[in-house]
């Protein structure tokens, strides 16, 4: 089908899946921020998610599809574009493009690497079994997610991995968030600059909010 092979079709796929992934990180961020309301808040949030049962698996399947489409076409388009532009100029100059736009595939792959680690760390809980919620004493009969998160981020090494990944996420979003407006044909000439600025602002807000969690724990503000 055209959607999976044509140049605009794949661009639209990138935009739509990207937008849905932004939706996911929005919900994920709001849930995570409950850590600032204390152990009870985030543990209740974790329990609530667990209690969804089969819905969690449907959600995971959808997420897997979104990531698979976004990553496959992202890498494919990157390789095609590299092949279309094989020889560099002796004097290479860019005028308006940004570092984040030029590094989309790399920040994307950093986020993918992080995603795998993140799942092994907090979902499967195999990277640090000593502080995994499965091995921590239960609180009121529920898993103690709060203690797992706090003890994880008190380890400088783990906190740094998360900080690097969140910087990559910030860079990825600062091109991606405004890009879909153009790709779906919603931008008009005069709105262009405002959309770009708004996209960067969203990226900054998300970046800072996500970074705040490991940073505040590392600084022992949340304990």
């Amino acid at each position, binding site marked *: 089908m055209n959607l999976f092979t044509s140049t605009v079709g794949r661009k639209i796929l990138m935009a739509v899946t990207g937008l849905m992934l932004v939706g996911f990180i929005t919900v994920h961020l709001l849930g995570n921020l409950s850590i600032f309301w204390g152990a009870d808040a985030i543990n209740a949030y974790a329990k609530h998610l667990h209690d969804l049962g089969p819905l969690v698996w449907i959600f995971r399947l959808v997420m897997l599809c979104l990531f698979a489409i976004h990553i496959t076409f992202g890498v494919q388009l990157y390789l*095609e574009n590299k092949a*279309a532009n094989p020889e560099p100029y002796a*004097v290479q100059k860019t005028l308006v493009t940004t570092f984040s736009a030029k590094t989309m595939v790399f920040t994307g792959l950093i986020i993918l690497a992080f995603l795998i680690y993140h799942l092994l760390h907090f979902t499967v809980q195999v990277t640090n079994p000593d502080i995994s919620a499965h091995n921590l004493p239960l609180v009121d009969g529920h898993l103690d997610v709060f203690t797992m998160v706090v003890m994880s981020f008190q380890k400088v090494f783990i906190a740094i991995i998360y900080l690097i990944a969140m910087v990559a996420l910030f860079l990825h979003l600062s091109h991606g968030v405004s890009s879909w407006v153009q790709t779906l044909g919603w931008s008009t000439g005069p709105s262009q600059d405002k959309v770009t600025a708004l996209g960067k602002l969203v990226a900054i807000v998300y970046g800072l909010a996500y970074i705040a969690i490991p940073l505040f724990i590392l600084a022992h503000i949340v304990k």
Partner: protein
Amino acid sequence: MNLTLHVWRQKGPQAKGKLETYQAKNVSPDQSFLEMLDEVNDDLIKSGKDPIAFDHDCREGICGMCSQVINGRPHGHEERTTVCQLHMRQFNDGDEIFVEPWRAKAFPIQKDLIVDRSSLDAIMQSGGYTSCHTGGVPDGNTFPIPKPVADYAMDAAECIGCGACIAACPNSSAMLYTSAKVAQLAALPQGKPEARKRVKAMTEALLAEGFGNCTNHYECEAACPKGISVKFIAKLNREYLKSMMPSSLGE
């Protein structure tokens, strides 16, 4: 003024090219960049050497033949200017200037600074036209077109097809070039009947010719000598989405 030029020299499509250095002496600030190159070529011819081959035609900024990347910028650093309209007063005595051809897989180098831009023609031939009956000139008011629509179409039609957008694009994508024609014709009543077919055919031709995909860098707009806006790319995307919707004709 005196300048040092580093010019890409390449004997033919298969030959290996390299930058060669030339001195341009006593350059007048009132000369255009091409006139300056003409004089350098005069000296080369007089000393029995092969002159620098470059594309040019009207030399008044409307034909789209000039195709030189000057110090890393297509058509040089002056905004909304083609190489032929770039004047030497924009440079300073003693400047070092790098002159390179458009670079893209879809633009194979023919000789020195000349590239083959037939790929752009192939995109245009795939759908950049309207099919209409020939005959007498239609009456001026046969198709009522509101002024803002006419202006919009004219802004898109300003594209001279030089290929600077591709030369500037990190992906060597011809999306701005393609979108200018798609947007121009989609805006006008004469272009609407074939709008669905056109946007698909032209974007398919774009890939088939070896151009890259658009990833919204917007380098094209910044480099365009005619200031074609990337809003036309958004319009192309919109047209593409429309073409994906079911049609009452079952297209």
